[in-house]
């Protein structure tokens, strides 16, 4: 193992751990705003109960996201100094705008959103909730802009081997940005839909018959069922965009070695890069051509086009991209089946009398959004290799010359901490669910509706 591979694994581990939590908070922020607004409109207690339960999950996820995000801003320097040296003039302003327009907004109003309900008027609290949700979305926008630019760079010129920005509009609205942004926002929505449906199903299995649990289960199933077709459409469009801009990635996703027409859709295979062929291939004829070119004999690029005359491989490692893509699509299909099945059951039985079997399946799928999101990111990020910025900067040019032992030991350190924290995180969420099931009261306060000030709850000493 060399510093390059270890640094890649380390960055991959850090960013994988990090993305788990924003994936939840981006959409959960909006979901909390929805609960809060439903309460303001209907005055039904269940919406405030739902808010109070999920705001705790939000607070925990947000803290995990913040602290793991701090790691990211340091790792650019510790592990990838070449990145900022070469493309800093583009990446820098984008990161700066993320910090200034999003991070502070989220972080400051989070305090008011979490602990300020009794100190400010109800509408101020709702506004704080909105600003936190808006902040997470802004943050997604800027980081996706930068990430997309690394896949499809434009709007720059090279001066003395360093990238200089020449057109910010082109940089921000680079070709893959709209697709990636929509794809990620929907991924977050689906992750949260299945998380809230799954945890609610778990509570119902434990015997919780609270109105809030049923309401959240319904919201989760309906949101999931509504978003998954959109996500499949967005994913398809994103794939076509990738075919145009990064054909080598698509070739690896499809496990297609030769550029040709009538390419089959490979369902299962073990891609073998040494033999440059697929082993144990199971495939449906012509379907990959159909999906990618909308014609049965359409030509699909092959991996062998991306081997230099001297044998240098300029396409990504095939197996991780190939499998990452299949795991993402497979999870998405399971989500489609479950949410639409859930919708039918909801119509037939209602949330109260939902049979136990689907409840088990829903709770097993609580964190399915994580799997799909990670698999999707692996597909697109490993699919960009050997480039760090497509066609501009290769990954090995950017890595720092820190000794192998240092990278390896810190990598092990990170992995241990991250492993323990993920276990603790899932453990605490189920513990919160169990405590709520036991009927622990979230709050004894009577909540004011729109515009009323919570007079009774002023703190002593004010």
């Amino acid at each position, binding site marked *: 193992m060399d510093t390059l591979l270890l640094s890649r694994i380390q960055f991959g581990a850090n960013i994988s751990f990090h993305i788990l939590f924003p994936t939840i908070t981006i959409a959960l922020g909006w979901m909390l705003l929805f609960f809060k607004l439903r309460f303001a409109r209907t005055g039904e207690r269940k919406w405030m109960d739902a808010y*109070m339960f999920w*705001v*705790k999950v939000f*607070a*925990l996820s947000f*803290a995990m996201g*913040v*602290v*793991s995000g*701090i790691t990211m*801003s*340091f790792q650019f*320097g*510790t592990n990838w*100094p*070449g990145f*900022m040296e070469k493309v*800093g*003039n*583009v990446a*820098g*302003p984008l*990161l*700066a*705008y993320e*910090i*200034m327009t999003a*991070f*502070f*907004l989220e*972080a*400051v109003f*989070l*305090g*008011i959103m*979490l*602990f*300020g*309900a*009794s*100190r400010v008027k109800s509408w101020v609290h709702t506004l704080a909730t909105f600003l936190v949700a808006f902040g997470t979305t802004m943050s997604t926008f800027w980081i996706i802009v930068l990430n997309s630019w690394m896949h499809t760079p434009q709007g720059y010129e090279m001066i003395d081997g*360093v990238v*200089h*920005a020449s057109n*910010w509009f082109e940089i921000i609205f680079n070709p893959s940005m709209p697709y990636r942004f929509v794809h990620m926002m929907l991924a977050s929505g689906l992750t949260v839909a299945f998380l809230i449906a799954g945890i609610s199903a778990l509570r119902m299995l434990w015997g919780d018959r609270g109105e809030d649990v049923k309401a959240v289960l319904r919201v989760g199933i309906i949101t999931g069922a509504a978003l998954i077709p959109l996500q499949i459409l967005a994913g398809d469009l994103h794939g076509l965009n990738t075919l145009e801009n990064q054909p080598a990635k698509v070739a690896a996703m499809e496990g297609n070695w030769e550029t040709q027409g009538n390419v089959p859709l490979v369902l299962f295979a073990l891609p073998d890069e040494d033999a440059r062929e697929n082993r144990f291939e199971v495939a449906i004829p012509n379907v990959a051509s159909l999906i990618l070119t909308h014609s049965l004999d359409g030509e699909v690029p092959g991996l062998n086009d991306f081997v230099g005359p001297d044998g240098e491989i300029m396409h990504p490692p095939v197996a991780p991209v190939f499998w990452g893509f299949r795991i993402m699509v497979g999870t998405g299909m399971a989500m489609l089946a479950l949410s639409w099945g859930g919708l039918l059951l909801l119509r037939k039985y209602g949330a109260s009398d939902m049979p136990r079997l689907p409840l088990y399946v829903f709770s097993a799928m609580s964190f399915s959004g994580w799997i799909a999101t990670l698999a999707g990111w692996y597909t697109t990020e490993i699919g960009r290799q050997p480039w760090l910025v497509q066609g501009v900067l290769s990954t090995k040019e950017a890595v*720092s*010359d*820190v000794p192998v032992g*240092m990278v390896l030991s*810190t990598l092990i*350190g990170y992995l241990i901490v991250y492993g323990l924290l993920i276990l*603790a995180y899932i*453990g*605490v969420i189920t*513990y919160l669910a169990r405590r709520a099931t036991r009927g622990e009261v979230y*709050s004894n*306060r009577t909540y004011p509706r729109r515009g009323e000030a919570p007079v009774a709850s002023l*703190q002593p*000493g*004010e």
Partner: protein
Amino acid sequence: METFGDPAIWLPWAFAALMGLSILIYVVLDGFDLGVGLLVPLADDTQKDRLVASIGPFWDANETWLVLAVGLLLVAFPTAHGEILTSLYLPVFVMLIGLILRGVSFEMRAKAPLTQKKLWNGAFFAGSLMASLSQGFMLGMYVMGLTWTLPHVAFALLTAVFLTVGYSFIGAAWLIWKTEGALQTRAISWAKGGIWGLVMGIAAISLATPFVSTRIFDKWFSWPEALYLSPLPIISGALVVFLWWQLSRMPLKNDGWSWTPFAAATGLFTLAYGGMAYSFYPYVVPEKITIYEAASAPESLFIILLGTLFVLPAILSYTVLSYYIFRGKAAELKYD
């Protein structure tokens, strides 16, 4: 861009000032909440909750100043970012793990089963300790020019201890302001026990800095610069004397002047920091790379600066709003 003269001169300067300001705000704000984390083991169980409550609504935004500071280093001085962070690889790792542990245990200690609370309290303390020590260590290494030799590491270990004790002092000063009764009394004694860290830290860095580089030595001890510089040590000394006197007679009737130790501690941090900034300017990597050499292209800096001019006042004003909403003595943390 040309209005203020050569953009390759004033833009790096403006960004160095912005970055310096972010680091200073970070050191004071996260300094007090790291400090409160360091004091957790000294408090009893109900007091622990109140300690955490006193920083609850703020810590997250406080840490964002670190992200901004590192972000500005990253975007405005990319070569320096690489140079500094690769040479501080290990302490950065320790700090990051510390900050992660801290932020997570902050949430976990209130949400995990009661039997685990002790564990998460421990993690909260350990995280605060790792972050404080490594920041102090990095400060020492930076002053020593980022070279790993035995005397430099020894000096950095010393500053690690001093900064940690200094943080616990400003944490205690925060608690004097934000708590009352028995806890406040304890905070006063913690502050008395921690003030030496701050004083020794400032002294150690002030003594070492001019002797590391002749350039800084000349800057300090030449006429008339020494005269302009003299208010720094004089005011610092006066603040230390004031703190000593004030702490010995606290608590005062009706909670009078309870904000003064925190204000004085902030003043001390600011002065010490100002002195360092003066010494190291114009270098961002000590004696190696100046801010002008390390700066990004002027067009890129300019577009960030434009945003900053709009956004920074907004950030400052809603930060003030948040401190205003959570003014007064810290109350129990409740979501409703």
